[in-house]
């Protein structure tokens, strides 16, 4: 007998949108839920927030119900994660597990109920962020993918792509480089600029590696806000106007 694929039950490409990647939550059956998940991925400072705001407006004007869910924003975990980040005792494993816990809370309390009710869920970052960050920190890639086997495969994944140089300038102009975004926890040096560059480059590599497998729709982050938004709306429109969008709630 052949050994089973170690990723057979974990997060991987080729899973039907709206289904669990792997083992899932045995106590919820989601197969016929009418809602859709649209995930927007991309590193910090690339313009996700702006694009999500504009997309949401556009969808709502067209009568769709929209729910937004964002990384580390679960009511259960957000305070804990902030606290943990200040304690200096986080290691790569507890870091990864806290993220997973936050995601699980939002999945059960926000995403699944919204899908059931026929909403469009816009996810500001999805499990790919977790996989990329874990990869950069040297966490076993099969383990992290099996861990996220309980996640639901999105209907569309957009990836806002940008090169580290352009990103560095944008972040500096904006809010400045933060400790965690710059991967200072990885102790690659005291210089925050160098650390930012190193860690962002490693992150971009992780995203690139997932791009084909998970079918990312790549959006050029250097294009104008409007050009990106136009591209985004066109592709979302195609999904919703097609057969798959027939069940989505419209008012």
């Amino acid at each position, binding site marked *: 007998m052949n050994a089973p694929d170690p990723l057979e*039950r*974990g997060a991987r490409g080729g899973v039907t949108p709206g289904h669990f990647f*792997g*083992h*899932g*939550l*045995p*106590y919820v059956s989601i197969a016929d839920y009418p809602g859709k998940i649209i995930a927007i991925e991309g590193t910090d400072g690339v313009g996700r927030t702006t694009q999500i705001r504009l997309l949401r407006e556009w969808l709502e004007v067209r009568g769709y119900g929209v729910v937004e869910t964002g990384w580390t924003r679960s009511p*259960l*975990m957000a305070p804990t994660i902030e606290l943990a980040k200040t304690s200096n*005792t986080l*290691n790569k*494993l*507890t870091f990864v*597990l*806290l993220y*997973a*816990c936050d995601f*699980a*809370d939002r*999945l*059960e309390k926000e995403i699944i109920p919204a899908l059931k009710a026929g909403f469009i869920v816009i996810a500001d970052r999805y499990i790919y962020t977790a996989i990329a960050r874990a990869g950069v920190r040297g966490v*076993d890639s099969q*383990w992290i993918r*099996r*861990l996220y*086997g*309980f996640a639901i495969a999105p209907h569309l994944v957009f990836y806002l792509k940008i090169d580290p140089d352009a990103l560095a300038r944008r972040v500096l102009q904006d809010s400045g480089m933060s400790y965690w975004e710059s991967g200072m926890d990885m102790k690659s040096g005291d210089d925050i600029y160098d650390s930012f560059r190193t860690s962002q480059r490693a992150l971009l590599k992780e995203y690139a590696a997932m791009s084909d497998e998970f079918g990312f729709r790549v959006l050029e982050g250097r294009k104008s806000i409007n050009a990106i938004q136009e591209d985004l709306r066109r592709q979302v429109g195609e999904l919703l106007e097609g057969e798959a969008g027939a069940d989505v709630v419209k008012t």
Partner: protein
Amino acid sequence: MTFSLLHATDFADRLLYKIVPPLKAGMIVLADRYAYTAFARDVARGVDRQWVRDLYSFAVKPDLAVYFRVPIDVSLDRLLARRVKLKFYEAGMDMGWSANATDSFRIFQSKVLEEYDRIVDEHGLDVIDARGSITEQQRRLRDIAGALLETAQP
């Protein structure tokens, strides 16, 4: 699911700060519950059996794992004799199976015990009959632990 992941986070923290360093120093670590508790409790709550095992694959496999087996009635009697109220999660009240804590405990813990029986076979746990007296149980535990330590270098 969040229940399961929060416990895993706590475990990972203890593993790296409290378990691995003494092991490296050649000391004996006594763990009051280990990953097996999660296998039993989380699955009783409806989490996938294989998923939770994959989750804990970062744990160190213990040199010796002992399971104190006791029927539900005995554990209920002992708990109720000591304190008035069963704890909310211990009784599985979060599952909504029964509004009565004792009934809920019985339903939830029988699922937990069923899972433990599966784990005993799967992971080769040593079973001690916990209905016996403390002295008997302790004698048996010392025999098992002693046998392990004799084969190990001090």
